């Protein structure tokens, strides 16, 4: 019958629509996933493959050289300078940012009048580009016009501060600028942590006669361990990627004194046409980031599952 025919057609149409509705969410997610696969994972593999080739100016996947690039990399003095600088930078940057951030957060948490004014002042550098930060600090630390010059004008004739021109100390000027940029953010993280501490705990400790010092040292600061961990991960990750600030302040100089792995990668790949070695250095950088991030993400996910 005709009626039966139409109802059958409607039925298949409904079925088709439902099937389409089933795959629609996947279709929506597909482009982003495909992009991630190609642009992140595919590209990592591509760079990994390049690091095993003798590519110079252009990618060349026909000249396989095994691990030669990695051997040359770890034989190269500039790579060791970069690693050394990264170690200095990372240690000082993380330690000072954490200590300063925590100290500021604790002080700000004492019912400070004007907290609403102070907090944005501590935090605004985070909104700036590292290039802008670099320009400001480069000229402020420049002996000719900056701090040293100012101190001399104020009568301190023997005052000398020329770290930025000194290959032994230049890396520390980059540390100063980086701390200026990031410590306010660490402060904000700790402040959020402190505001989350249960007031009852504080009161109970005070009834037990604990001084403020003991209260913070024995009770509150140990409770901040998760914040320390988050701050560590964020800062370590920023440190390994540090590139812009170095370019703006010293561009690696004086000489090669302030090279970092990120700068090494850029200079070797595009400056010296050593694409194979550049790729090898990028792979090492990825491994360093992964060594910090993967255990962290893993533990965070495990924590979520158990709670």
């Amino acid at each position: 019958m005709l009626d039966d025919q139409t109802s059958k057609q409607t039925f298949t149409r409904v079925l088709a629509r439902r099937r389409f509705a089933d795959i629609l969410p996947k279709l929506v997610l597909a482009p982003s996933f495909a992009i991630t696969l190609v642009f992140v994972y595919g590209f990592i593999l591509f760079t990994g493959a390049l690091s095993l080739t003798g590519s110079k100016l252009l990618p060349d996947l026909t000249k396989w050289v095994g691990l030669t690039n990695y051997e040359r990399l770890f034989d190269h003095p500039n790579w060791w300078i970069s690693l050394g600088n990264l170690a200095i930078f990372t240690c000082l940057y993380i330690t000072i940012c954490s200590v300063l951030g925590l100290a500021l957060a604790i002080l700000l948490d004492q019912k400070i009048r004007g907290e609403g004014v102070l907090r944005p002042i501590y935090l605004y550098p985070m909104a700036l580009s590292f290039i802008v930060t670099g320009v400001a600090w480069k000229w402020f630390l420049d002996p000719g016009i900056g701090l040293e010059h100012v101190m001399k004008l104020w009568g301190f004739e023997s005052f000398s501060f020329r770290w930025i021109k000194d290959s032994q100390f230049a890396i520390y000027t980059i540390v100063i600028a980086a701390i200026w940029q990031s410590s306010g953010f660490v402060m904000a993280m700790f402040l959020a942590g402190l505001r989350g501490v249960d007031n009852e705990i504080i009161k109970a400790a005070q009834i037990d006669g604990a001084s403020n010092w003991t209260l913070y040292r024995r009770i509150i600061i140990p409770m901040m361990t998760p914040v320390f961990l988050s701050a560590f991960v964020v800062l370590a990750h920023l440190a390994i990627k540090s590139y812009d600030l170095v370019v703006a302040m010293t561009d690696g100089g004086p000489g090669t004194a302030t090279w970092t792995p990120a700068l090494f990668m850029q200079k070797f790949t595009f400056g010296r046409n050593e694409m194979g070695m550049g790729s090898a250095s990028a792979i090492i950088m990825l491994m360093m980031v992964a060594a910090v991030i993967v255990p962290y993400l893993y533990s965070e996910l495990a924590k979520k599952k158990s709670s």
Partner: protein
Amino acid sequence: MSSSQSQQAVKMGFATRLLVYGILLIVAIFYLLPLYIMIVNSLKPLVEIQQGNMLSLPHEWTVAAWSSAWSTAQIGVEPTGLKPYFLNSLLMVVPAVFIATMLGALNGYVLTKWRFRGSEIIFAMMLLSCFIPFQIVIIPSARLLGLAGLSGTIAGLVAIHTVYGLGFTTLFFRNFYEAFPTELVRAAQMDGARFFQTFWRILLPNSGPIIVVTVIWQFTNIWNDFLFGASFSDADSQPMTVALNNLVNSSTGVKEYNVHFAGAILAALPTLLVYILSGRYFVRGLMAGSVKG
């Protein structure tokens, strides 16, 4: 002890309190110093910086450095000022932020309200992409942009920034929609709303805060980017950060510090304005972007 005291139970004496304020003020000066230096010296004639004190106010106030930085300073080979590069940055930022935010919202919607087998793994894989050092993708990206005929164009930069922003935008929206009541979504579907209708009518109108957080995060990151800009642009398509670096670090001629400072403020202005106008959301984005998952 008064019972109205809820925020903070720690007590201290007057002297300690004074000390605390003192320290906080000194630190505040440390944070403000570079901004003060940039502003003050951008308003001086060059001689005053070369011979005078960097920390003192201008004797002779002038906006000459500002107009030079904006429209006549030598960037690379052309005396164009930073104006065209400011426009480049705008042309790059607006589409990249818009596309990545839209896609992130849709992804977050699927990943929370339309879960399927493997969707968690897809999310984990996208999340991991937030952390890679971008040096690892520079060479293949340059190659692909070249093959697509997009090297040295703003469109190429838009594509790259969109692609590498997706991880974060997806993360933001996923975490936000995770807490969004699924019953509302189900109810809408009972009423016959389909996939996109539910998204447009139910989720998107309630996504105000997370859209603001995401847009600010993306805007700040892309505006402040240097690595991609320096790697994939040519003289005509450079973003502001790259042009500023060229202005400051060009080795020819006299170093016009006042122009450099004015240029630095111009490059910082958009993100600073965003920060001043919406500090609360800015902080929230930073937190969400750091304490992931």
